[in-house]
C-alpha cells in the first residue's frame, strides 16, 4: 500500500512538472505574440506616415550608429514587407499558442483526476470537501 502510494506520488510529481513546463512555455509564447503585435502596430503607423509624405522627402533609416538615407519608395516597400512578415509570424505564434493551451488543459484534467484518486486513496470514507 505504501509502495503504491509512493509510486502514485512520483506519477503525480511528473505530471505536475509537465504541467508547469507547459505553462511556462505558454507564457513565453504569449509575451512573444505581444511584442509581435506591438511591432506590427508600430510598422502600421510608419506606413501611414510614409503614405502621407511627399515623394521627394528625405527618409533615413537608422542602422546601428549610422543613419542611411533612403528613397520614399524603398522605405515604403521595406515597411510593407516587414508588416507582412510580422503578420505571418504572429499567425504562426497564435497557432502554437492554441496547441499549447490545449495541452495545458489536458494536463490539468489529468492532474485533477490524479488528485481525486489521491483523495480517495487517502480516505475513502471522507467525502470531497
Amino acid at each position, binding site marked *: 500500500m505504501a509502495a503504491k502510494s509512493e509510486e502514485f506520488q512520483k506519477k503525480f510529481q511528473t505530471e505536475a512538472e509537465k504541467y508547469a513546463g507547459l505553462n511556462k512555455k505558454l507564457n513565453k509564447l504569449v509575451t512573444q505574440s505581444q511584442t509581435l503585435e506591438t511591432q506590427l502596430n508600430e510598422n502600421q503607423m510608419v506606413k501611414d506616415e510614409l503614405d502621407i509624405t511627399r515623394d521627394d522627402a528625405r527618409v533615413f*533609416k537608422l542602422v546601428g550608429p549610422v543613419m542611411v538615407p533612403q528613397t520614399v519608395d524603398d522605405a515604403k516597400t521595406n515597411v510593407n514587407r516587414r508588416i507582412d512578415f510580422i503578420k505571418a509570424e504572429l499567425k504562426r505564434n497564435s497557432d502554437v499558442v492554441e496547441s499549447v493551451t490545449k495541452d495545458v488543459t489536458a494536463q490539468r484534467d489529468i492532474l485533477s483526476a490524479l488528485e481525486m484518486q489521491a483523495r480517495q486513496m487517502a480516505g475513502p470514507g471522507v467525502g470531497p470537501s
Partner: protein
Amino acid sequence: MSPGKFLHLKKCFYVLWKTWDLPLIKIIHPFTNPLISSNYISAGCWLGIGMTSSSPPPPPAGILYRVDGESLNTLIEKYEQSLSTNSTEQERLDKLRQEYVTLKTRLTTLPLQLDYNALVPLGRRALCPGKIIHTNEIMCLLGDNWFVECSSAKAIEIVNHRVTKLDEQHESLRKERELINNWKQEAERQLVETIGEGTVEIREDYDEQHERHWREQHRESVRRYHQQQAKRRVEARQEKSQVEDELWSRLDELELQEDLVAYLEEEQEEEIVEKPVTAVRHAPKESNAAPTFKKDIEDKHNTPPPTSLSSTKTETRIETTTEVKVKAPPARGKRVKFSADNIIHDISDDQNYEKQESYNQERSSVALNFTDDGTVSSYPCFDPIFIRFHHSALTYVDGDENDASGTEEEDQKSQIVSSPGDIVKVFGPTSISAISNKPLPKSILKPYAPPLVLDKRSKKPQGRDTKKPSPISEDDDIDIDSITINESAVSKVVTERVPIFTNLQLNTPSTLNNDSETNASKPVSLFKMRRQQPPEVAVSSPD
C-alpha cells in the same frame, strides 16, 4: 490567459531635431526641453495599455458558480486591481498627450526666427554659448528606426496624428474602466446578498443511478400521457364524425327539396331566365340520396336551425324567412354599391325567386356553428346575394336596401352584363377581332360531342358523361351541373358566333321555340359543319 485579451501596446515616438550643423550632435526631444538633452538614442516610451497577465477575470457567462463571500471578495479584489492599472495607464496617456501639445507649440514658434542664441550643453557638465540654426528642418522618428526629415509644419501634422491615436487609446481605456466597474458592482451586490440574507446555496448532486431511474419514470409517464392524448383525439374525432353525419343528412334533405321543386317547376314550364352571375360560391353538394320528398322534409323540420331554411307548404316553393341586410364592403378608393334588385330581401318575391331557386338548386349552404360545449347547430348562412357589377359608364345605385323601388328602373335602363356573351353586345367585339381580319380561333370542342346547351331548368346532363371535361372551364360561374345536352335541339340550334365562348348555345326562349325558323337566317359554324361531315373526320378525339 490568451493573447486575444491584450490590448495592444503602443509606442509613442519622439521628434528628433536637427538644430545645427554639427552632424554628431543631435538634439532629441523626449519629454524635456529640446535644448538640454544630448543623447542620440530615441527615447521611445512604451505604453503598456494591455492588462496582460493581470487582466481581471470577466464574470462567467450567466450566474456566478459559487455564491459565497470568500470567492466574491477575491473577485472584487481582482477587479479593483485591474481598475488601478487602468487608471495608471490613463494617467500616463494624459501626460504624454500634454507633452505632445507643448511640442506642437514649440514647433509652431521655432521657425519664426532664423536662429536663436542658446547655451549648448557639451557633455554632462559643460555648457557653451551657441546658436540654433536650421530652425525649420526637423528630423522625425516615425518608428522602427525610420526617420523622415521635414519642415516644422509637417512635423506638426505628425504630432497631430499621434495625438489622435492617443485619444483613441484613452477612449478604449475609459470603456474598459466602465466595464470593470460594472462587473465590480455586480459582484458587490452579490456579496451583499449572500452576507446579508444568508442565502442557501442550492446544490443538486448528480447521481447516476438516481438520474437513470428518473429518466425511466419520465419516459413512462410521457408514454402514458401520449396514449391519453391519442384516446382523447379519437373520441373527439368520433364525435365530430357523428355531428358531421347529422349535417350531411340534413344537407341531403335540402337537396331533395330542391330537386323536388325543380322537377315541379319544370313541369309547369316557367320561363327560363338566364342565371345571373353570382358572386357567392359554395362547395358543390354531395351526391343525391333517393328522393322521398315531402315526408322527409316534414320529419326533419324539427332539426335545430334557428331560422329554418325551409318550411314545408302545400306549394312547392321554398321560402326563407330571413331578411338579408346587405352591407356592401367598401372598396378602397371606390364605392361599391349593389343594385337593390339583386339583393334578395324576401325570397317569396316572384321576381327574385328564379335567382334564388337556381341558386338553391345547386348549392345548399348551411353554416355550422360549432359551439364550445360540443354541440353543433346549423343555421343558414347568408342568403345569396346577387351582386351586379356596373361598369363606369353606368350609373351606380345607392346601396340602401330600402330604396329598392326607385332604383329598379334605372337598372333596367342600363345595360347589364350578366354573362360573358353580353360583354360583346354591350361593349362591342374584342379589339383583336375588330381590328384584325384574322378568323376567329378554332373551336376547342371535340367534334364527337354535341355542343353543350345551357339549360337552367334541366336535370343532370343527359347525353354525356359528366366526368368528361367540359369545354367550359370551371372558372366561369356557370355551373356544370346545369349544362345539359339537348339532343333534339342540336341539329336545329345554331351557335351564335361569340368570340369568347365559341360553342355555347345560350338557350334563349327564341331559340327553343323558333328553331327551324331562325335556322336559315343564321350562319352555321365551322364546327357544326365539320360535325355534319362523315364521322371519319370526327374520330380523332381522345376520350
